[in-house]
């Protein structure tokens, strides 16, 4: 799958408290999470993002709390993919589990600037900065994680595997 979008850049150690403050985590409404996405850095971030935009960050993106509203908030406002030098491990799992593609690339964040147009090939890990006319190679997404993304996250993947039939949101709890 190839994604194309405009870039928003972030620095080192973007933590989950700035991605979504805990005050908004008693809700389970993704729209509510989205409204406060990156509030600790830029309260208007969610208004500026266009669907398909891409975040490019430095190291240790998503450190801190295990809160899953963090990747959900980012996904909800329309970010299609995050590229960072490294991700905090719980955020890394959570992103795949909620179906938000993320790529680790040591080089790209050094060159890609805010506002650049980039193209990301999720299958090969190739990142093309169209504004720079330069390509970067991210670590390819492991096959197991690609399966998760294809199935739309861990629970849908499990539902398929365990034949729970759900995943569409159609069945209600009894």
């Amino acid at each position, binding site marked *: 799958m190839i994604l194309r979008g405009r870039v928003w850049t972030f620095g080192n150690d973007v933590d989950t408290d700035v991605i979504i403050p805990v005050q908004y985590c*008693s*809700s389970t409404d993704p729209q509510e999470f989205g409204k406060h996405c990156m509030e600790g850095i830029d309260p208007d971030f969610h208004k500026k993002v266009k669907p398909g935009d891409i975040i490019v960050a430095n190291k240790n993106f998503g450190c*801190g709390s295990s809160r899953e509203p963090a990747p959900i908030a980012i996904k909800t406002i329309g970010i299609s993919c995050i590229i960072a030098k490294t991700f905090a491990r719980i955020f890394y799992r959570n992103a795949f589990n909620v179906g938000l593609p993320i790529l680790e690339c040591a080089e790209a964040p050094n060159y890609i600037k805010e506002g650049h147009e980039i193209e990301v090939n999720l299958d090969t890990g190739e990142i093309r900065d169209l504004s720079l006319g330069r390509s970067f190679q991210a670590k390819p997404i492991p096959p197991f994680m690609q399966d998760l993304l294809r199935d739309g996250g861990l629970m849908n993947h499990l539902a398929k595997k365990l034949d729970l039939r759900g*995943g569409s949101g159609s069945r*209600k709890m009894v």
Partner: protein
Amino acid sequence: MGMTITEKILAAHAGVEKVTPGDLINAKIDIAFGHDLSAAEVMDTFERLGVDQIFDREKIVLVPDHFTPSKDIKSAESCKRMREFAKRHQISHYYEVGEMGIAHALLPEKGVVLPGDVVVGGDSHTCTYGALGAFATGVGSTDLAAAMLTGELWLKVPESIKFVYHGTLQKWVDGKDLILYTIGDIGVDGALYRAMEFTGEVIERLPMSGRLTMANMAVEAGAKNGIFQPDGVTEAYLRGRAVRPYTRFESDPDAVYAAVREYDVSQIEPQVAFPHLPSNTRSISQVENISIDQAVIGSCTNGRIEDLRIAARVLRGNKVAPYVRLIIIPATQEVYRQAMREGLFDIFLDAKAVISTPTCGPCVGGHMGVLAKGERAISTTNRNFVGRMGHPESEVYLSNPAVAAASAVKGRIANPEEVAKS
């Protein structure tokens, strides 16, 4: 080639003889834990999938500890959902207000998490249980839902870094200072994706409270888990607590480590982590005049009885500075009762501190001590990120309980030596 304690526990739970770092395994889960925030999302996930089943009612732990007693209608609703789920599935380890505590203090105290276990929890500080010699790691609520449903979870076997502590601890220095110093040394991603194994003669002498504090903050260095070798201290702690038999694992002498770091603790002073990263540490003697508005003593990091005793030693005969709030939060009901019995509450009340029921409240900027714009706190908690304790323009400094107590008395970040009368 031998295995580390982390590798041995994971191999045993994957049903294989040997694992090596990088292996993807399906691990059997001994305990899956959720609190009022993460469990509410698990219930959501279950509803979306149309499932309402769990793998084992004895192996699921639910604790309302973040926004409890409920601070508003939304948090009351998430607690209610969790309570109803616990009731419906007859969850053995559900702890209602009145017997609850901050989970990471409560579960070791109740003997629910044990050496050799694989524990996953919907909270990043689940790594605390590594103090007992368990493999324990934080996960998001989807992973938690998968674990609660199937009793298994996929894990990547981490490389281990060995931390060796030599020498003798200085006065007022404890586990909090060792872990802050270590994070200051390696950075907030210094152990990213890796296991932190804590060893050395200082660790052998360190009480369980200090080990729990250190393992608790492994995640602040990016680690997957922090772990200690179970020993006599572990056995003594678990006597009369452990609810089931357990297995002690230990690292082989020829186990392979990604790195080994050695520290002479004789040189380590009480540490203060400045805003806005836990790695932004300075020795207390290097801290200039920094006034504070609030001090918090408690949390899963430092809310145990040993922490409150240290705070009391500093506060005895002293008063909190004018216009400063000191909030003391015993982490569990047992800690609360013990502190009361020992007369610590009189010392706290005489010093003009407030004593709260157990809650994670202020650490996450939830309730019971949220900061206003421009306010500054010193806290025995584990994170000082932007907006962590309230307004995005407030500040949090992290320290041990002695420094937090001394700072409350002085109204500025202070060395306990300046204050303690005994």
